[in-house]
């Protein structure tokens, strides 16, 4: 067994030497990482992405290594990569171990929904791909965009209560509690996550929904599509409880845009902040090249 693994290692070491210092064939598992690679100008070196990497368009047509929690060692090796970028929740662990034993450099990005964590991932991808200066520039732009949004969020006055709904298929929609990407976005945009009694996601119950008393219901385009549109969402029993007050407003964004935690997060945060603070002017951010689907 050990000799065989040594063989796998020699094989990959050889490909790395041939390729030179900077890895030329990169696999990314995690939509935010895929977007960062593109924003740094290394998108043409990607040879495979996971099924969450739907943006930009040319990433979504690359070979798919599958769902990022159910990766396949031989499938990934068949793309002959010399670098794999993976989020912390990529797995299963045994497969990542097999890939490491095969000599593939697997870099795990530190998790985190704060802007600083996104910036740290930009730096990590930059140094892994030999795009250090591009990464430094992207970090500065990204953090200054974030700062402009946060500066404009009103400090005083009541904060709007926002409830995030996630629907997949026919099951009951799930509500996000604490320690989720959605909750982090709501808080960063100057809102209150209307449900903070638990961590992670739980199925929606009408009474809990009424108790949460949200001013806004935030969801994703994909969830709306799964439910059968905005009308179907408003027809859920949970909404009937609130219908009399008639003030709850539904906001929806593309899921990878809202929850990808890549370079587009500054703009997603701006859009969300502007939507939940209609009375305060939140400045429009300059257009950035990495917002383009055709980038």
């Amino acid at each position: 067994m050990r000799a065989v693994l040594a063989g796998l290692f020699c094989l990959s070491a050889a490909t790395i030497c041939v390729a030179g210092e900077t890895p030329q064939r990169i696999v990314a598992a995690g939509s935010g990482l895929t977007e960062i690679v593109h924003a740094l100008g290394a998108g043409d070196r990607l040879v495979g992405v996971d099924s969450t990497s739907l943006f930009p368009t040319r990433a979504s047509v690359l070979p798919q290594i599958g769902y990022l929690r159910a990766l396949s060692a031989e499938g990934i090796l068949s793309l002959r990569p010399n670098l794999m970028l993976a989020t912390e929740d990529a797995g299963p662990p045994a497969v990542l171990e097999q890939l490491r034993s095969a000599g593939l450099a697997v870099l795990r990005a530190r998790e985190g929904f704060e802007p600083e964590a996104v910036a740290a991932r930009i730096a990590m991808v930059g140094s892994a791909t030999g795009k250090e200066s591009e990464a430094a520039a992207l970090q500065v732009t990204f953090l200054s965009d974030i700062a402009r949004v946060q500066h404009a969020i009103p400090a005083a006055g009541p904060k709007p209560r926002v409830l995030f709904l996630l629907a997949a298929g026919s099951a009951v929609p799930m509500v996000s509690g604490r320690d989720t990407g959605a909750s982090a976005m709501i808080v960063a945009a100057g809102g209150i996550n209307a449900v903070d009694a638990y961590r992670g996601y739980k199925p929606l119950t009408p009474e809990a929904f009424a108790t949460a008393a949200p001013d806004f219901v935030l969801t994703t385009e994909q969830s709306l599509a799964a439910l059968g549109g905005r009308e179907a969402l408003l027809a859920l029993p949970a909404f009937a409880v609130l219908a009399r007050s008639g003030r709850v407003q539904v906001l929806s964004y593309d899921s990878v845009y809202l929850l990808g935690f890549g370079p587009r997060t500054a703009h997603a945060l701006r859009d969300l902040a502007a939507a939940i603070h209609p009375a305060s002017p939140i400045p429009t951010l300059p257009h950035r090249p990495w917002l383009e689907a055709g980038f």
Partner: protein
Amino acid sequence: MRRFAPLVAAALLALALVGALALGPVRLPVGDVIGALGQLAGLPVAAEPQAVAVVGALRMPRAILAALAGAVLGLAGALTQGLFRNPLADPGVLGIAGGASLGAVSAIFFGFAALSVWALPATGFIGGLAAALLVSRIARSDGRTPVATLLLAGIAVNALAMSLTGIVVYASDDRQLRDISLWLMGSVGGATAIRIWILVPFAALLLVGLPFFARGLDALMLGEREAVHLGVGIETLKAGVIGCVALAVGAVVSCVGPIGFVGLVVPHIARMFLGPGHRLLLPVSTLAGAALLVAADTFARLVVAPAELPVGLVTAAIGAPFFAAMVARSKRRLAI
């Protein structure tokens, strides 16, 4: 035909193993695969290092794990159906898969699974064994274990295990939830030497007991009383079958997840060709179960490459239509 059945099943297994070693997302010429196998076997042959690495570290462990798991599931299914004298029985009726799932899901929920490579197999195994013990404990009265009671006890314990699993699933956060649902689909993707060595002694246990089980189950087909008259220690037989099946299936489920279909349908297919005699049915179910799971895993690795499907979905997806076609073709012969 019947006499050659074990040879046919062995040939199918050999074919499936050759396919598993030769095929995969990494394209290797047949010559390189043969060279790699030679070198792995210690022969002084030159081999492509890439082929040696892919075959030796990735494909071979998977093929061996799939073969062991499939063999145990096929044999355990045939044994359970023989014991219950019911072709709808599978190892699930003893509560093993339900108990093992509860153990494994709890390990993921409480975070044990991340602590050690042994944690998930161990908790799954303990869960499966505990469920099987509970089933036979509930069913036993006056030193006897009537199979009808055993079946009902199995249903009760399975329902309990499922509801407890549901509670754990409900309490899980979304990441654990995704891990749990993937585990419940079954996969041999995490094939490591550890998981293979876990399975070896349990598979051996079933195989060693095979001649004893075959004689006893053949006698049992006539009825419990008749079997006793034929000199079969009926309670020893039951305890032996239940004990060995619980241990072996518990080990399999804890290593690869609850892979359905193999244990239920492989013995059926074997019975269509062989009739009900266990002397042939048991070894053929073993070999055919191994062949089916190895072939299904190769399919799972290839069909959406470079991604892969959970093999539990494949066994059902390729096996069920095949089985339905067989049933439709041989309705008359099927009177089991």
